[in-house]
């Protein structure tokens, strides 16, 4: 306890200069909405930091296909900050397309073009995927060069083997059932994809920090992959259970009550996958951002309060980051496990089991 207090006091002392540095901006009110959503939202450029009031950001390519006949346009996101490029500009905050690229139709209304821009999240996805490929293919390379029957990997390869074995033995083998080998590449890819993206989302600076798995489009695609895997490879028993389940006849004819519920269930399962991952990661980001915001919110309350609360915020931030690392793993684990369970349910064959 005494040591804890010492660390706390020391931290407060270290953080004392912070409010002094922040002093010139004292008249600037912190826009909490902009601060929170700006960090978790997708954007056309990758904002790294702000030096002396000037934002430092990495420009990313904007790719749009005009709906008013302008064709395909590719340009740097730097032009958007300067006001627009060939009729394309970012819609103002009172527009229904606020923050997105729009073009102005001849009648003066805003039209949303086909927008395939490489946004911050796309860039994050590319970087994280590259890291993932590097790690997994690097691990696979070791096995190609060594005889795994004679040697046991150490270090990073050993860690990867441990993780892969854990996911395969604990999740895939148990949840999918006897023909798990067919699905194990997909489930392993999903696990490591989510895990790497979650972890990179916690890293607060470039190349991390993109809120990839906290974006609903990303989790939607992941959920759709599971959805199609389940329904394309589902067996006869799976479809019979949906369309003609083992319930009293009046529940399925003439009014197909149970089949309707089951068909709804087909979609709620991946929907829950999508929302769970999205909401957990987004909430984690919000929590960390909120804790850090305490430092800036208390900047005007004097050095003592600000320093003390900054120390609290840093300690809480450390705790939150640790928690988020845990959540990053748990969510990847849960997504993989539930996907495996859904696949396993679609592969069940009670007749074969009873025999």
């Amino acid at each position, binding site marked *: 306890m005494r040591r804890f207090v010492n660390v706390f006091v020391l931290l407060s002392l270290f953080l004392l200069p912070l409010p002094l540095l922040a002093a010139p901006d004292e008249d600037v009110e912190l826009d909490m909405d902009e601060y929170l*959503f700006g960090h978790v939202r997708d954007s056309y450029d990758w904002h790294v930091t702000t030096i002396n009031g000037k934002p430092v950001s990495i420009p990313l390519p904007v790719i749009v296909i005009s709906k008013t006949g302008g064709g395909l346009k590719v340009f740097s996101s730097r032009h958007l900050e300067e006001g627009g490029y060939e009729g394309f500009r970012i819609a103002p905050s009172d527009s229904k397309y606020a923050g997105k690229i729009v073009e102005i139709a001849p009648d003066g209304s805003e039209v949303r073009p086909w927008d395939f821009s490489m946004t911050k*999240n796309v860039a994050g996805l590319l970087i994280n995927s590259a890291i993932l490929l590097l790690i997994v293919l690097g691990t696979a390379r070791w096995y190609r060069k060594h005889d795994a029957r004679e040697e046991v990997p150490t270090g990073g390869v050993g860690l990867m083997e441990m993780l892969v*074995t854990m996911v395969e033995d604990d999740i895939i083998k148990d949840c999918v059932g006897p023909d798990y080998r067919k699905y194990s590449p997909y489930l392993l890819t999903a696990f490591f994809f989510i895990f790497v993206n979650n972890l990179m989302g916690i890293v607060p600076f470039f190349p991390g920090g993109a809120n990839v798995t906290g*974006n609903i489009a990303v989790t939607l*695609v992941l959920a759709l*992959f599971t959805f199609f895997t389940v329904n394309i490879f589902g067996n006869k028993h799976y479809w019979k259970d949906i369309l003609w389940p083992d319930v009293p006849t009046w529940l399925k004819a003439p009014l197909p009550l149970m089949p309707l519920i089951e068909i709804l269930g087909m979609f709620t399962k991946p929907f829950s996958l999508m929302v769970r991952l999205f909401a957990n990661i987004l909430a984690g980001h919000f929590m960390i951002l909120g804790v850090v915001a305490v430092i800036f919110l208390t900047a005007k309350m004097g050095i003592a309060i600000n320093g003390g609360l900054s120390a609290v915020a840093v300690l809480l931030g450390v705790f939150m980051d640790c928690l988020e690392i845990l959540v990053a793993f748990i969510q990847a684990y849960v997504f993989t496990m539930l996907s495996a369970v859904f696949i396993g349910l679609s592969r069940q064959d009670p007749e074969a089991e009873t025999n």
Partner: protein
Amino acid sequence: MSLITPDFGLLVWMTLIFGIVLFILAKWGFPMITDSVQKRADRINGSIKAAKEAEEKLRNLSEEQARIVEEAKQEQGRILKEAAESRDVMVEQAKQQARDEASRILDQARTQIAAEKENALRDIRKEVAVLSVGVAEKVLRKDLGEEVNRSGLLDRLVEEASSNRDAKLDN
């Protein structure tokens, strides 16, 4: 960009990127790792089984060994017993032979002694006869000198001597 409405562009990109990542990893990534780990697991299981079998064999071998040692011990005991028996028989035989030999030698000696005694007696008897004749001759010569005429006496003496001899021979 709203938080809960999926952005179409990002959907396309995500599908593309995840699809490619999935394809690459499913083809060159994870199967390589999982197969290798599976192979190792199989090998370890096989090794454990082989070790168990070897142990079993070893146990059988030591049982066999113990059995052989036991047999050898029994054989040893049997041979020792036989040796002792045959030794006893041989000693007995030797004793018997020695006894027989001894009695044979004794018999021989006894016969020889008896023969020697007979010879000695015969010699003594001959000597006594010669001495008696000598003595008688001397006596007779003296007596005959004095009373040569007394032939009656000579006859009596001869008779006496011969009857004595007969009596002795009868004995």
